């Protein structure tokens, strides 16, 4: 398909096809779990694991799957890796698993994971598919960690649990759902401005 240099497959996910800031996909976990930087980072890592593993399997079997059942097949593969990630977090990182709650099993309905299979992994060779998945995953990690850091900073004066602004008077609203919408809105606006200026 595309004949771009291989590194472009990775880099495009970070900026021009960033799932959160450019494509506005996967908003539900983005808004819900980014109450702190560590939650955002863990959610991003779990999602990237699911996305990359799924892209790997889908790109390997892409020529065998009849198009009529491709969505069912992709969903089954995604659900398998999500359950693996969920059980792994529960077994090894119970505190993080508790903080993320139902949002780990809900990765299964994250639309950009199925989206990457449809538009990329089912049509491209394995190497490029993995790079594409890692790129989009890194873009997601970047967005969630940034969002979580800003909300944690303004909501409690800390980032990753470390005090950044001493004797900060917490803006409780930043940790509440409204804070997620506000932060995301400002960030998307900022990304749009940067995009316009650099074009």
């Amino acid at each position: 398909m595309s004949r771009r240099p291989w590194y472009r497959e990775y880099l495009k996910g970070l900026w021009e096809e960033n799932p959160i800031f450019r494509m506005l996909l996967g908003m539900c976990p983005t808004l819900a779990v980014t109450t702190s930087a560590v939650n955002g980072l863990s959610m991003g890592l779990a999602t990237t694991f699911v996305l990359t593993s799924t892209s790997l399997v889908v790109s390997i079997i892409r020529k065998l799957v009849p198009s009529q059942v491709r969505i069912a097949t992709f969903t089954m593969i995604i659900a398998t890796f999500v359950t693996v990630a969920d059980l792994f977090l529960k077994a090894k990182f119970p505190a993080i698993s508790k903080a993320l709650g139902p949002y780990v099993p809900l990765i299964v309905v994250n639309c950009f994971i199925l989206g990457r299979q449809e538009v990329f992994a089912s049509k491209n060779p394995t190497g490029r598919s993995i790079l594409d998945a890692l790129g989009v995953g890194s873009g997601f990690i970047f967005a969630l960690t940034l969002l979580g850091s800003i909300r944690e900073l303004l909501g409690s004066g800390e980032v990753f649990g470390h005090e950044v602004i001493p004797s900060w008077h917490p803006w409780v609203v930043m940790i509440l759902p409204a804070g997620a919408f506000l932060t995301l809105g400002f960030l998307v606006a900022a990304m749009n401005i940067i995009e316009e200026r650099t074009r």
Partner: protein
Amino acid sequence: MSVSARMMIVLTVVGAFSGLSLVYMDKYAEPYIALHKKEAIREAIGKVLPDVAGAEEVHRDEIVIYRALDSSGGLVGYAFLAEGPGYQGTIQLMVGVAPDLRRLTGMEVLESVETPGLGAKITESSFKEQFRGLEVVPAVGYVKAGRKPAPNEITAITGATISSTSVVRIVNEGLKEVRRVIDFRAAEPVPLKEGGTN
């Protein structure tokens, strides 16, 4: 090969692989998850009762009570799990109570999904510490912030009265159950049917 045959084969093979890997993953994770659960309970018992060396799990009328013992085997109190609806989801508490069932020795929040910054303060020590030494006869009550609480009352969190009173209600309901199965007026605790040790 016809398309429908290919569809069936692909879905069957993918489904079988997925099932197999999940069985394997579950086998790997299950003992860890059980261990974390047990640890969380043991840790909570240690927090709500002083000088706990060990705890016996006691089952009676479908109620689980932990009989906490110190290092010489003396009874330091009882701990029990209690849960009920909070402002948003279910609140699960571990409550420690003295052997005479007249005052609490501590309270820990195991699970809650209260509003961050408001109701979630029930998990902070400033709120939980109020339960240490709190009298529970006739029942636990609460006052709003600014008023002086009686020995059996706690001060509710400002802006989170519902979360605070939910905790009070869950504690009272749990105590009622515990009182029903343990005869606290007896000088010696009534021998209980033991369902296993922890």
